[in-house]
């Protein structure tokens, strides 16, 4: 039971880390505003759901909007900083997260919005070993679908091939006549869209307020460190692992719940500094 709760929590982590990992693997940028995009996604999602009453509609509209926000961010803010070292895009997105938090405070108030569980997904369902909230099952299924979709996109489509090639060697891809700037733009937008999507998916399970992206950013960094920087498989596995560790500790040692995942990270760092699925030289 607690395992399922952990997997539901972990699937959000996995999604977030996957978005971070896509952007990092391709652009070498750690998006410090990732938590803020997650928060924006949750706000927009709940807002659209309240206005239209249609969950599926907001599930499509929200990632589109956060994705567009990502496109604008890459084009006008991150792009001028390429070639100026790794720290600058990180610092810039950090500043951006401040702005996004305040914009949401101005728009929706500091209290946040009440989260809504969509109709049809309320209540619990018998999963054989006990009753489990329907929405969390939906959450697990939806994330699995999204992760499969991203995997399919990268492994099986032409665009995915270009992305993979670009991550491996951007010079060669440029020489082959691919407009790499466009690919980077797309990848950044996709990463932000996934962050927004995880925001709306997570919104019924947590309170929607302007600060909600802050702890989740630290936690998704833990996931990225545990999984190994730039490894999509690592992001997914570590996301689930962190979710399960969190919910197991909160069952047996509730006081240590928040700490447990950071302890997990410290242990992984001591044993395998490059993360579970990271390559040895991939940290510099």
């Amino acid at each position, binding site marked *: 039971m607690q395992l399922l709760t952990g997997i539901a929590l972990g699937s959000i982590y996995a999604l977030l880390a996957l978005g971070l990992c896509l952007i*990092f693997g391709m652009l070498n940028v*750690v998006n410090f505003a990732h938590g803020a995009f997650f928060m924006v996604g949750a706000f927009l999602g709940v807002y659209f759901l309240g206005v239209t009453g249609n969950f599926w509609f907001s599930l499509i509209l929200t990632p589109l909007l956060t994705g567009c926000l990502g496109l604008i961010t890459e084009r006008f*803010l991150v792009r*001028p*900083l390429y070639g*100026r070292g*790794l*720290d*600058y895009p*990180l*610092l*810039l997105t*950090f*500043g*951006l*997260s*401040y*702005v996004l*938090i*305040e*914009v949401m*405070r*101005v728009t929706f108030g500091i209290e946040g919005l009440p989260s809504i569980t969509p109709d049809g997904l309320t209540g619990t369902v018998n999963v054989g070993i006990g009753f489990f909230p329907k929405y969390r099952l939906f959450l697990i299924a939806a994330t699995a679908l999204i992760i499969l979709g991203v995997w399919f996109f990268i492994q099986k489509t032409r665009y995915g091939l270009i992305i993979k090639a670009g991550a491996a060697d951007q010079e060669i891809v440029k020489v082959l006549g691919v407009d790499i700037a466009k690919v980077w733009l797309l990848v950044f937008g996709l990463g932000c869209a996934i962050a927004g999507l995880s925001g709306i998916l997570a919104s019924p399970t947590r309170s929607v307020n302007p600060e909600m992206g*802050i*702890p989740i950013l*630290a936690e998704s*960094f*833990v996931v*990225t*460190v545990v999984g190994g*920087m730039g490894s999509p498989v690592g992001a997914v596995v570590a996301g689930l692992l962190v979710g399960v560790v969190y919910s197991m500790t909160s069952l047996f040692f509730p*006081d240590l719940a*928040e*700490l447990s995942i*950071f*302890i997990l*990270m*410290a242990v992984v*760092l*001591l044993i395998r*500094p490059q993360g579970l699925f990271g390559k040895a030289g991939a*940290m*510099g």
Partner: protein
Amino acid sequence: MNSLFQLIARHRVLASTLFLAIFPFIMPYEALAINILIFGLFAMGFNLLFGYMGLLSFGHAAFLGIGSYLTGIGIVHYGLGWGTAILIGVIGAAIGGLIMGFLAIRTRGIYFSMVTLALGQIIYYIFYKAESLTGGENGLRGVRVDTFNIFGVPVDFLNPMVKYYIILFFVVIAIWLISRILNSPLGAVMEAIRENEKRAAACGFDVAKTKLLVFVLSAAICGLAGSLRALHLSIVPIDSLHYLQSGQAVMMSILGGMGTFFGPFVGAAVMLYLEDVVTTFTKHWMAVIGLIFMFFVLFFPKGIWGTILSKLQIHQDSK
């Protein structure tokens, strides 16, 4: 004019001290000046690691917080004198730096930032959970120091001006220490590591040991800033440990000019002064500071002080 600046650059500790001695008279009120003094020190300690060695830590709030809490706990729960309490705060922060540094220097680049941020969150939760000692969410209250006994002479610590100069005394010691570190061979190795880590290692320097040492020194200085803050505010808010507080150190360094001696101080002064002004007409000052910060990252990466210095073409070595 230029030779004046050269003179200031050569005697940076003296110049900083003189400037800070008259600083409260150009500020609207003393509490703001004290705040700038403390956060300036915090940013300078952080800059030692980031500006001079190129390690971008997002966990330095931990050291500010450890310094504050240990000093506060010493005074509130154990009735220690201010001297012992400050010492405990600084040593505690240094030990925290040793542990965090030991784990974090195993990684490099952006990874380092992520690990320090996550480790900083551990410290946050530890202090948050230890409610009986730290007051949890409400923060630690009642860190009262009314009088300072200096060589047996009681001095009224509640007088803001007196408070400013007592805190300045500690800050000047720290500034002198930072200047000595930067002028020592260690300072040169730090900059070598920033410029090219592999080459520094090939020259025979122990890169890992240097990184750890500087991490601990930086943590201790930030811990001192924290201790002083606890005495100043007479409470320790839990926010001291929050990673947005770490972000403030980062912002102040960038705004003022990372890798310059006095830049972080300038950054702290500008940012806190702005906060003070902006909050009088809107409570959304975070958006303003965020935008200004992004503007500097994009167009003035050298920061205010760094840009001034490079306009005056003052050489790197004598900053």
